[in-house]
C-alpha cells in the first residue's frame, strides 16, 4: 500500500520535473536551463508542445534569404551517436538529426545536400541561433520553458524523457530499483541532475560529470552503478556498449524540437510543415529504423510526439 503511494508520488514529481523540462542531459548546458529553482516560475506559463501553425508559404524574408544563399546552415552535434555524430572513418557527420537537416534542405532548396552542417557545442546552441550563425539547430534539443523565452521551437519531432542506463547484469526492472542504494551518475546542468536533486530515488550517491557519455566510462570502470540521462542519449549509450541496457520506465517526459530565431516566424511555420510531411511520407520512420531501432526498439510509437 505504502509502496503504491510512494510510486504515485514519484510519478507526480517526475512528471512535474519533466514538464518543467529543465534542460537536456547532454551536459555543459546553458546555465539558465539548468537552474532548478528557476523552473517552477515557468511551470504554468508554457506549453512545450505548441508552436506556430505549419505553412508552405515561402515568401517570408528569412526563407528568401536562405533561398538566395542557396544553402541551409544547420547547427548540429558531432558527439551524439546515431543522432549527430562525426564518423571517424568517413569524417562525415551522420545520424537521425542529420537526416532531418537534409530533409529540411530538400524541402526548402530542392536538394538534400544543399546544407552546411555547423558543429555547435552544447553550451553555445542558444547563442548560435540568436546571433544568426545558423538558420536552425537540430541537435537533440529539449524544448523547455526557459529556452522558449530565448528562441523559437518547431513542433516536437521526438518524444523523449529520461531513462536509466544500467549494466544488464544488474537485472533492473524499474527506475527506483535501479537507483536505490546505488551510485548514480548524471551530466552537469542536465535535467537528469535536476531530477535527482528533486527526487534522489534512494541513491547512495550521485556523481556529476561534464558530459553524459562520461557516465558510461565510469560505469564501465565500475565507479558508478547507473546513469540517468535523456532517453535519446541513453539509447546512444546502449548502442555503444552491448552490456548495458535501458532499464525501467521512462520518467520526466519531454519533447525534442528544432530551435530557430524568434523573429524568423516564416521559417518556424515552414519547418513545422516539413516535420508534418516528414512524418506522413515515412521519412521519419525510415530514419528511425536506420539509426535508432537497434537501441530503442523497432516500434517507434512511444517516441512519436
Amino acid at each position, binding site marked *: 500500500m505504502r509502496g503504491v503511494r510512494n510510486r504515485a508520488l514519484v510519478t507526480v514529481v517526475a512528471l512535474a520535473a519533466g514538464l518543467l523540462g529543465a534542460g537536456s542531459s547532454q*551536459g*555543459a548546458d546553458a546555465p539558465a536551463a539548468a537552474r532548478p529553482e528557476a523552473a517552477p516560475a515557468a511551470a504554468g506559463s508554457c506549453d512545450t508542445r505548441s508552436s506556430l501553425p505549419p505553412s508552405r508559404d515561402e515568401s517570408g524574408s528569412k526563407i528568401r534569404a536562405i533561398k538566395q544563399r542557396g544553402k541551409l546552415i544547420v547547427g548540429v552535434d558531432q558527439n551524439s551517436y546515431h543522432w549527430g555524430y562525426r564518423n571517424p572513418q568517413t569524417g562525415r557527420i551522420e545520424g537521425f538529426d542529420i537526416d532531418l537537416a537534409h530533409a529540411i534542405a530538400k524541402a526548402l532548396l530542392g536538394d538534400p545536400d544543399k546544407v552546411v552542417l555547423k*558543429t555547435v557545442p*552544447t553550451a553555445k546552441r542558444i547563442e548560435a541561433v540568436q546571433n544568426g550563425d545558423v538558420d536552425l539547430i537540430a541537435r537533440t534539443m529539449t524544448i523547455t520553458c526557459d529556452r522558449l523565452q530565448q528562441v523559437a521551437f518547431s513542433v516536437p519531432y521526438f518524444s523523449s524523457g529520461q531513462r536509466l542506463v544500467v549494466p544488464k547484469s544488474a537485472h533492473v526492472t524499474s527506475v527506483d530499483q535501479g537507483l536505490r542504494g546505488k551510485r548514480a551518475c548524471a551530466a552537469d546542468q542536465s535535467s537528469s541532475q535536476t531530477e535527482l536533486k528533486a527526487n534522489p530515488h534512494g541513491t547512495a550517491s550521485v556523481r556529476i560529470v561534464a558530459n553524459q557519455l562520461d557516465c558510461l566510462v565510469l560505469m564501465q570502470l565500475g565507479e558508478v552503478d547507473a546513469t540517468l540521462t535523456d532517453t535519446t542519449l541513453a539509447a546512444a549509450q546502449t548502442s555503444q556498449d552491448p552490456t548495458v541496457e535501458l532499464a525501467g520506465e521512462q520518467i520526466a517526459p519531454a519533447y525534442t524540437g528544432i530551435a530557430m530565431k524568434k523573429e524568423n516566424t516564416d521559417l518556424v511555420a515552414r519547418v513545422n510543415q516539413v516535420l508534418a510531411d516528414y512524418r506522413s511520407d515515412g521519412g521519419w520512420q525510415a530514419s528511425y529504423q536506420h539509426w535508432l531501432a537497434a537501441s530503442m526498439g523497432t516500434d517507434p510509437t512511444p517516441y512519436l510526439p
Partner: protein
Amino acid sequence: MTPVQQQAVVPAQRQPSAPATRRLLGRTTGRLRESTRTAPGRLRLAGAVLTGLLLLLGAATCWQAVGLGRATDQVVSHSEPLSENAAEIYRSLADADTTAAGNFLLAGNAPAAVHQRYQDDLAKAGRLLTEAAARTDTSSAAQGSIAKLNQQLPVYSALVATAGTYDRQGLPLGGAYLRHASELMRTTMLPTAQQLVDDERKRLDADYEDALGLPYLAAGLGVLTLAALVWCQVLLLRRTNRVFNIGMLGATAAVVLTLGWLATAGAAAQSGLGDSRDHAARPLRALDQARFSALQARAAENLDLVARGATTQYTTDWAADTKALSGGQLDQARQGAPEGSVQALTAARTAFQNWTAKHQAAATANDAGDYDTALKAVIGPGSDSSDAAFAALDQHLADAATVEQAAFRSAARGVGGWWTALAGGAVVLAALGAAGVVVGLGRRLAEYR
C-alpha cells in the same frame, strides 16, 4: 721534574677514591703552576698549546672541508640531477597527454613518429621514476609521490588504449575515454609530479644552503692559532733577542697557508656554486614551469577538438595555461638566464605569439562550426598549423634548457675539488706546523740544559 715523571703519576692511581682524586688534581695544578714559574716550563707549555692548536686546526679544517666537499657533491651529482629528473618526469607525462590527444585527433592517419613519441614518453617516465626511486631515501615524501605515479601510469595508459580501441570502432565513447584519461593525468598525476618536483627543489635548496655554508670553525681556529704563534714569537723575541726562529716561522707560514687555502676554496665555492644556482638552477626552474604550461596548453588545445563541444573545460584550461606563460613564466625564465640561452628564449617568445595567433584562427573556425578547418589548423601537417608553431616553441624552450643545464655543470665544476684538496692539505700543513713548533721551541729549550 721531567715529563716522564709527570706521566708516571696517573697509572699509579688506578681507582682513586674521592679524596685521592682531589689530591691528585691539587697536585697536578700545583705542578702546572710550578712549571709556568720557570722559563723551560713555560716554553714546554707553550709548545704543547701551540701543537694542540695546530693539530686541532688541521682536524677542524679537514672535517669542514670534507663536509663542504660532500655537500657540494650532493648538489652537483645528487640533488640537482634528481631535481632535473623530477622535472623530466613531469615533462614526459605532460607530453604523453599532449601526444595522446594529438594521436587521437589524427586517428588512423597518425604518422608512426607521433605514435612512437607517446610510447617513448611513457617509457621515459617509467624509467625516470625507477631511477628516482633508487636514488631517493625510502622515508622521504618524494618516495610517496613516486609510488603514486608508478601506480597510476599503467592505469593512464590503459585508458588511452581503450580510447583508441573505441575510436577505431567509430564510437564517440573513445573521445570520452580519452578525456577521462586526460582528467586522471591533469587532476591527479601532474599535481603529484609537481609535488615531486617541488620536493626535489626544496632539497636542492637545502643542499645549496649546506654547500654554500662558510667554514667558521676552521677560520676561527686558524686566526686563533696564528695569533698565538705571533704572540709566542713576540715573547721569544723579547726574551732571547733572536729575530728568526725557523721552526716557528714555518709553523706560522703553515697556518697562513691553511687560512689562504680556506679563503680560496670558500671563494671558489661561493662564486662557482652561487653562479650555478643564480644563473643556472634558478632560471632553469622558471624555464621548466614555462615548459610545463606550454605542454598543458597544447594538450588543452588538442582535447578541445577531441571533446567536439562536449565540454567547454578545455577552452578555460587553454586560457589559464597561456595566461600563465605570457603573464610571467616566460619573463621569469629570462631572469638571470645565462647569456647563451637568451637567444633561444627570445625566439621562444616569438614562437609563443605565433602559436597563440594560429590557435586563435583555429578556435574561430571551430566556434563557427567549421570543425574540419579547425582540425587542420590545429593538427594538420605543414608549417602553417598550430602544431608546427607549438613544436617550434617547445624546441626553443628545450634549447634554452640544454644551455642552462650545461651552464650549471660548467659553473659547479671543480668546486668539490677545492674542498677535497684542502681536506688533505690542511692535515699535512698542520703536521708540518706542529713539527715546526716542536723543532723551533726545542731549540730554545735545549739552551736551558
